[in-house]
Each structure stands twice: as structure tokens, then as C-alpha cells.
């Protein structure tokens, strides 16, 4: 083939491939545009005032995923009528949690080269009190019952140097003083009664007991552990293995979590359990599907979690004693917190 013919082949192929590439980007962009239009069968959403202050009427605040102009904004519904009309706040979050009038919102921020992420601490009126840059993609967020502490977890990875290995970083912030523990990996670890350190330690899914103590998942050497942490002593202690994303009940007696069960398919490996901290006995919950979420306690008897749905995710509720079965709480929502 002469050089001229080679160039003709190359240019022709370039035109065809550029067409395919452009079409795929345009297709994806128009699909996104559709998501900004309200769906007829979706829940009604309107903009309005959202407050995190615990008031008399109990409400759920969550990330609204229903298509339309308020997609991905924090919204509230009355706890008594979760499928009812939503009030959207105008504040966008990927992950969110709130307690006692303090909110932690993990959001994307547009960068010059790539999107970054930040954790924003919100007051009861959703005004920003402070924000912190994040080293990766947000996955978990929690606030202590008093509203004084916030914790978040991000995924770090996606560089060729890391290959396909992912790691997590979990930070804890004292919202009163601004004291930030950038990563729990700096804490002393006591594993099975002995001091332990390793390069492959990862933490995720903090749940607060009070303003000093918390529980979390620690992973190392291909095992996961439930750890109890002490913020003042800067130390974590392992309690048991094979436990992920703990969530402490409001009365502090039980931990709801997801557990890897042998024999389940590799892409849906988890089953939900509740651990009684006094007896250390586990109870399997009546959810047959694999749940990848950190549960939220609606009250001392009921847990709430998300599962993939038509608009990203739906929320379900389930008795915490192993009886009954899952009930859909609301559609097109993620990261709920109960107020009041």
C-alpha cells in the first residue's frame, strides 16, 4: 500500500471512529438531560425550606434521586408519610447524614482537570460551617448522636499505580474544635489482644456511640473486623471478624451490619444481621437480597437501607429482630437520616 492510500485508510477510519465517539457522548449527554425532567410516575418534589433542627413532627431527610430539577438534592418527607410529597433544599449531596442539627454532606466539586470531592459540615439551616477536601470518592457518612462529631469514608484508587486495588480512608472530625483525624490508619491498633500495624489496613463505616467512642470496620490481610475505637486514646480494638458497615442502635445495645456469607454469588455476597453487644449473638434479618449499605435505625425496632432501583436506589425498612420482611419505604432515595 502506498503512503497515500494508507493515509486515506487512516483518515476514513478516523472519521468513522470520531463519529461513533461523538455519538456515544451525545447519547450519554441527552440521557442525562432526560434525568432533569420530571417523571410522571415519580414522587412529587418541590423546592422549599429544609431544616435539620429536630422538631416535633418526625421527618426523614435523604438524597432525593427522583428525576427532575431537584435530583440529588437533600429532601425531607414526613416520617409518617414517606411516599408523600418531598421538600427539596437546593443542596446537592452524594452521601449525607444528620443528627442533632448537624449535617455532613459529601459532595462533588468541579475541578479544572478532574472532579474533586469535599465534605461540608452543615448547620441546622443547611448553611456551610466548614468544608474539607477529600482524597477519593465518598461512600459513607455519619454524625454522632450529639451532633458534635462527624465521620466519613472515601474510596481511593483509580490510578495505574494502584492497579485494581482500592483502599478506603476514614476521617473523624470534631465539629466544635475543627480537630480532624485525617485517617484512622494513624490510630494504634490492638488486634486479638496484640499491637498490630500493616500497610494494608483499611477502615470504613464509622458509627458513633458517644462523643468519644465509635465502632467501625477494619480490614487487613483479607479479613474484616468489627473494631471499637476510642478517639481520646487514638486507639482501635478488634471485637470480632467478618462484619462490615456497623450501625449502632439508638439504645446502644445492638449493631446492625452486613456480613459476607459463604456460598452467595461473588457479586452479591452480603446478608444483613444484627449483633447483640451484651451476648455477642447474631440474628439474621429477613432480607433475602444482598445489601451493600450502612443501615440506619428508624427506631429501636426497625432498620432502613437502600437497594438498587429504577432511579438509582430505593429505601426499604425491615424489623431488626429477624421477623417479618422488607417493605419499600420510598422510591428514588439514598442516605436517609431521621430527624426529631
Amino acid at each position, binding site marked *: 500500500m502506498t503512503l497515500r492510500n494508507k493515509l486515506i485508510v487512516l483518515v476514513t477510519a478516523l472519521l468513522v471512529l470520531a463519529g461513533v465517539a461523538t455519538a456515544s457522548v451525545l447519547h450519554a449527554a441527552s440521557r442525562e438531560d432526560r434525568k432533569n425532567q420530571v417523571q410522571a410516575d415519580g414522587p412529587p418534589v418541590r423546592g422549599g425550606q429544609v431544616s435539620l433542627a429536630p422538631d416535633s413532627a418526625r421527618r426523614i431527610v435523604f438524597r432525593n434521586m427522583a428525576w427532575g430539577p431537584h435530583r440529588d438534592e437533600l429532601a425531607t418527607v414526613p416520617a409518617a408519610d414517606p411516599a408523600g410529597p418531598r421538600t427539596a433544599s437546593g443542596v446537592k449531596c452524594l452521601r449525607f447524614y444528620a443528627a442533632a442539627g448537624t449535617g455532613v454532606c459529601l459532595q462533588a466539586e468541579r475541578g479544572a482537570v478532574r472532579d474533586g470531592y469535599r465534605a461540608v459540615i452543615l448547620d441546622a439551616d443547611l448553611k456551610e460551617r466548614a468544608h474539607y477536601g477529600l482524597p477519593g470518592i465518598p461512600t459513607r457518612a455519619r454524625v454522632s448522636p450529639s451532633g458534635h462529631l462527624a465521620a466519613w469514608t472515601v474510596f481511593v484508587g*483509580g490510578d495505574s499505580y494502584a492497579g*485494581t486495588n482500592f483502599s478506603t480512608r476514614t476521617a473523624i472530625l470534631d465539629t466544635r474544635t475543627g480537630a480532624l483525624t485525617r485517617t484512622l490508619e494513624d490510630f494504634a491498633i490492638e488486634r486479638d489482644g496484640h499491637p498490630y500495624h500493616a500497610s494494608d489496613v483499611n477502615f470504613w463505616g464509622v458509627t458513633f456511640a458517644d462523643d468519644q467512642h465509635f465502632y467501625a470496620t477494619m480490614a487487613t490481610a483479607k479479613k474484616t473486623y468489627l473494631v471499637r475505637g476510642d478517639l481520646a486514646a487514638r486507639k482501635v480494638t478488634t471485637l470480632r471478624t467478618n462484619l462490615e458497615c456497623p450501625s449502632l442502635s439508638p439504645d446502644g445495645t445492638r449493631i446492625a451490619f452486613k456480613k459476607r456469607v459463604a456460598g452467595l454469588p461473588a457479586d452479591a455476597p452480603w446478608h444483613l444481621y444484627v449483633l447483640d453487644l451484651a451476648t455477642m449473638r447474631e440474628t439474621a434479618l429477613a432480607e433475602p437480597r444482598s445489601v451493600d449499605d450502612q443501615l440506619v435505625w428508624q427506631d429501636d425496632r426497625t432498620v432502613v437501607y437502600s437497594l438498587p432501583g429504577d432511579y438509582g436506589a430505593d429505601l426499604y425498612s425491615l424489623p431488626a429482630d429477624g421477623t417479618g420482611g422488607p417493605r419499600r419505604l420510598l422510591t428514588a432515595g439514598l442516605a436517609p437520616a431521621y430527624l426529631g
Partner: protein
Amino acid sequence: MYVADSRSTPAAPAARLTTGRRSAVAPTVLALGAVSLITDVSSEMVTAVLPLYLVTGLGLSPLGFGLLDGVYNGFSALVRLVGGHLADRGGRHKAVAVFGYGLSAVCKPLLLVAGSLPVIGAVLAADRTGKGLRTAPRDAMISLASAPEARGRAFGVHRAMDTAGALLGPLVAFLILRQAVDGYDAVFTVSFCVAAVGVLVLVLFVPARAAGPERAPGAPRASLKAALALLGEREVRRLALCALLLGLATVSDSFVYLLLQRRLDVPDRWFALLPLGTAAAFLLLAVPLGRLADRVGRWQVFLGGHAALLCAYALLLPGWRGAALPYVVLALHGLFYAATDGVLMAAAAGAVPAELRSSGLALIQTGQASARFVCSIAFGAAWTAWGDRTALGTAAAALALCAAGAVLLRPADPARTDGGTLA
């Protein structure tokens, strides 16, 4: 840079080489550099958005799945050796390279339909298999198309182009996501289109007959036996041993970035950008260090690169927290790659006859990669046993020791010997 007319065949550049006059880098090298650049744009696009896709697109927790575990490292070593051997048999460098690049290209659209972690893991494994297969034949073609005394520069040019692609990839991916939030399907589709262009450039503009005319009488016939017999060659053995020794004390990149952040307190928001620092230094220094290697000897530059790595380790050890320190460490880290990656191939090419070039390069690459893998396991174990600082101190001491050993082994200066080029 003076770019040679791409119509000229990559005949012996040696003919054009006269001392004191700058020669052009062979068009074949530039074409292969372009292929690598384009392919790296494609693959780094995927690498950059993969975690985002898994977490936000599929709603998965990729942690603890170990998409590709350690077993794969052994497999990829084998693939590299197989690719090298197949390329030497009948001088099919280009065919094997086309297969390797093609395999990686077809993996991109497969990501569109892979909705679960195990399947995505399998697709990524196939992608890496393609990469393993093509590496040695590609480097062999670069060496065969260049004059022995200009190989360092040729590899430098190729590596610089390759790294430029790696830097551009994430940029392209995030531009697409800017146009279409959650447009991961668009990223994978564009990535496939880009990879296809790379394969096409390879097919159209890289000449097939890289191995020159008929085999010279008495030259070794490419066979497994002959490839293994290479280890009997003193020069190859020394080079392989040195690469192996130094690889045993080369801490993997992910550890370097982790230590940078832990020891120097690099702010969280910069963490994802650390590898770009290394890549930028590599990009800038690959050509000058390649030329330097041609002038003063590849071996010296190769050792010098490890000295730079040793300095980087040393800077991470004490408790200083100077604002400029992370930049210095990343610059040294990039310098290490620029002085070792292509330079080792340039040195190895001088020790291996043309007929066995791919096998020989694959052998040395595999030795180095395996040694580095062993080092990362050992480093992780040392971290567990003694903590990060002691582990790093041990690695630095080991590197100094291995470097001393390598100095004693000291292969002859390959810049002055030649294992054969195009006749």
C-alpha cells in the same frame, strides 16, 4: 525534533549515523511511540474512571474483592515470555504486537456489558494479557529499528510518548464526564475508538519485517531452547541478575505515594495527583537521559537512576516536612523511571542477538517485574512487622546493598557492543 520522512523504510540508520551529526529517530520508533501514546490514552481513560464507575455507576463496594489478585502477576510473567518467544519465531514481532493491542482494544466495549465485579475483573485480566503479550515484541522492534549507538534515545522517545498518553487519558475521560455526568458508557466507547486508532496506526505504519533480511548463517534459530540458552550468555546473565537484584529493592509505586502522604503530610486533595508528578518528570527526562545513556553508557545511567530512587527513600525517612519535599521526591521518582525503564531495554538489546531479541527482552523484563513483585510482598510484610519507617529504612539499605552488588557485577558497556541490528 527532526522527523524523518515516514516513506523511508527503517533501513539501517547506522548508515546515516556519523559522529557529531544528530540523526533522526527511526520512523518505526516514532510510529510505535504514536501507537503507545494513543493506546495509553485509551487505557488510562478507563483506569481513571473505573472506581467512579464501580462506586457511583454500579453502586458497588470494590473493596476486598481484589479484582486481580497476586496469582495474576505470575500469569502475566508467563504471558510476557510467551509473547517474546512467539514474536521471535519467524520474526513475527508485528503480528504478536497487533494481537496484543487488538485484544486490549476489544476489552473496552466488553466493559459496557460487564455489570458485576467478577466479570469486570476478567475483562481487566484479558486487557492486561494483551499488554503482556505486546511489550517485548514492541521493544524488540524499537531496538531493531535503531542504530546500536542511538538506542537509548530511541527508547527515551518512545517512553516519553507513552507517558504523554498516560497523562492525557484521565484528562479526556473527565472531559467526557463533564459533558455527560455518569456517561461511563461514553467513556468506554470513546476509549475503544481511541484504541482502534492505535491498532490501525500499528497495522498501517509499522513495517512488518523488523527482523531484517534472512537469518545470517550461524545465527541462533529462535526456539525455546535458544531463548533459555540466552541465560548461559555471560552478558545476558549479568544484565538479568542486575535487573533482578535492583528490582528486589524497588518498592512499588503505590507504597511510595502512600509513604509520601503519610510521612510528608501531603494534603488529601492532592493524593490522586501524586502519580501525575512522577509521570511528568518521567516524560520530561526520558529523552535527555536516553541520550545521556547513549553517550556515557547505559549501565551508568541505569545505576544512576537507582541512586535517585535511593535519594527519594532517604528523603522520606526523616521527619522533615519541607513544602518542597514532595516535589523533590516525585521528581526523583520520575528520574528513576526515565533512567531505568527504556535504558535497561537499550542495554539488553546490545546483549541479545537480533533473532532472539524479543525473547531476551521478555526474559529481562520478567526477571525485573518478578523481583519487584517479591519486593512489594516483602515490603508489606516488613511494614506489618516493624512499621512503615523501619520498612522503608530496610528497603533503602537493601537498595544500597543491591546497587553495590550490581556495581561488582558490572556488565560490559553495551553501548560499545552490539548484539546485532538490521543488516
